[in-house]
């Protein structure tokens, strides 16, 4: 069998390392790029290069950004006394899309999952506590800041997310800061019939006046 040209097999190998892409998909993508206009492949190459060269983690909220501190952390239009704690950078995007939240964020980069060996020390929890202390002492000069009055725990509503939220709440509550959690219940468009008892139980407990 004739071996593949070296650049093609290199690209297939590179695509195969991406999550959710197997060897077949990797080959399809590589051959698509081979046949496509040069501009398509070059744009992709430039985008990949820029991704690594021009992005960093904000040293305040640990979100992915193009400068440090990120635009949200330096904005004087945001409420720096309200801190929304999320698991991943994509969660920030999801909450921003609602246009309902005016506070700032803190990205943990994961959730507590003992069975996978991820404990509190592997997340940005110590950084969160440090950030709260700094805001309290008003020792930050390069960006707007305010004493934290509310921590909104927006970790995922699964066991790992709940454990993470419980753990953080246990650390924060003694500081006298209000700790809130995203409401849990039935999703829009869902069927009551298919709801599990935990979700339905929480929806009942959190019912509201009409």
């Amino acid at each position, binding site marked *: 069998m004739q071996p593949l040209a070296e650049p093609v097999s290199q690209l297939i190998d590179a695509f195969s390392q991406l999550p959710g892409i197997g060897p077949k998909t990797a080959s399809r993508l590589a051959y698509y790029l081979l046949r496509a206009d040069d501009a398509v492949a070059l744009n992709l190459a430039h985008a990949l290069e820029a991704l690594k060269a021009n992005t960093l983690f904000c040293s305040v909220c640990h979100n992915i950004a193009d400068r440090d501190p990120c635009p949200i952390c330096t904005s004087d239009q945001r409420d720096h006394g309200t801190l929304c704690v999320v698991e991943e950078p994509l969660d920030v995007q999801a909450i921003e899309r609602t246009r309902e939240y005016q506070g700032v964020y803190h990205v943990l980069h994961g959730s507590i999952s*003992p069975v996978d*060996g991820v404990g509190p020390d592997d997340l940005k929890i110590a950084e969160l506590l440090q950030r709260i202390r700094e805001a309290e002492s008003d020792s930050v000069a390069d960006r707007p800041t305010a004493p934290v009055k509310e921590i909104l725990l927006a970790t995922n509503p*699964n066991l790992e997310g709940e454990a993470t939220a419980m*753990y953080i709440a246990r650390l924060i509550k003694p500081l006298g800061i209000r700790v809130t959690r995203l409401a849990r219940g039935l999703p829009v468009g869902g069927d009551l019939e298919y709801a599990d008892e*935990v979700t339905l139980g929480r929806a009942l407990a959190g019912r509201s006046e009409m």
Partner: protein
Amino acid sequence: MANRIRSTGTRAVILRRRDYGDADRIVTTYTPSLGKQEFIAKGIRKTSSRKAGHLELFTHSALQVADARTWPIITEAATIESFRTLRTNLATIGAANYIAELIDRFTEANDENQPLWELLLLALRELDQAADDDAAPRRALLLRWFELHLLGLTGFQPQLFHCLSCGEALEPVQNFLSLSDGGLYCPACATGNRDLEALDPDVLKVLRYLQREPWPAVYQLSVRPAIMLRMENVLHRYLLTILEYRLRSTDFLHHVQG
């Protein structure tokens, strides 16, 4: 003739999950008749998923699964027991993680073990009843009892009643433990063997009781903290000797047990 997809119904406890693709998850489960099984749950990371809540960690669910090339696909899921109270306390979450990891590490796919299934359900039900902070001693006792019975049901039961060398019944004196041999040596046979460690008769007495008795006979037992600590230490090291690597969930368990 059209290919017919084979569909099977099973009960399962969700031991662990990992994200796969855009919105799918691979769930590792323990089942009564199929042993440990991995299934794929399509689309359960979407908020609109009807199955997500029924496939949460440690949930006991009824599943319908269809054969597929790599992983059988979960087509239906309904909660049988959600263990709601267990989820409200970090210490019980830590303990449930530990139990799930032990079951995961000590079992193989398609290896039916009905008593082990019963043991897993009993342990989760008991944790669900012991989610108060003042139930810590009962939780610790449950974990030691669970470890000993898991070892028994998977073929690693430590020999606590007879000397590994001469076979004589062990006397209620200080005997000598060998983790690598999986049991105890009497004082006479232990002479000259440097790899053994002394085990107090009080600790041995409780270990034997936990190994022999079912949970209803054990749960009201009051054990001195020093003995509990020594049992935990011995059993953890025995588990490590068998598994040959560190259990991931123990750090968090110790962290939240405080």
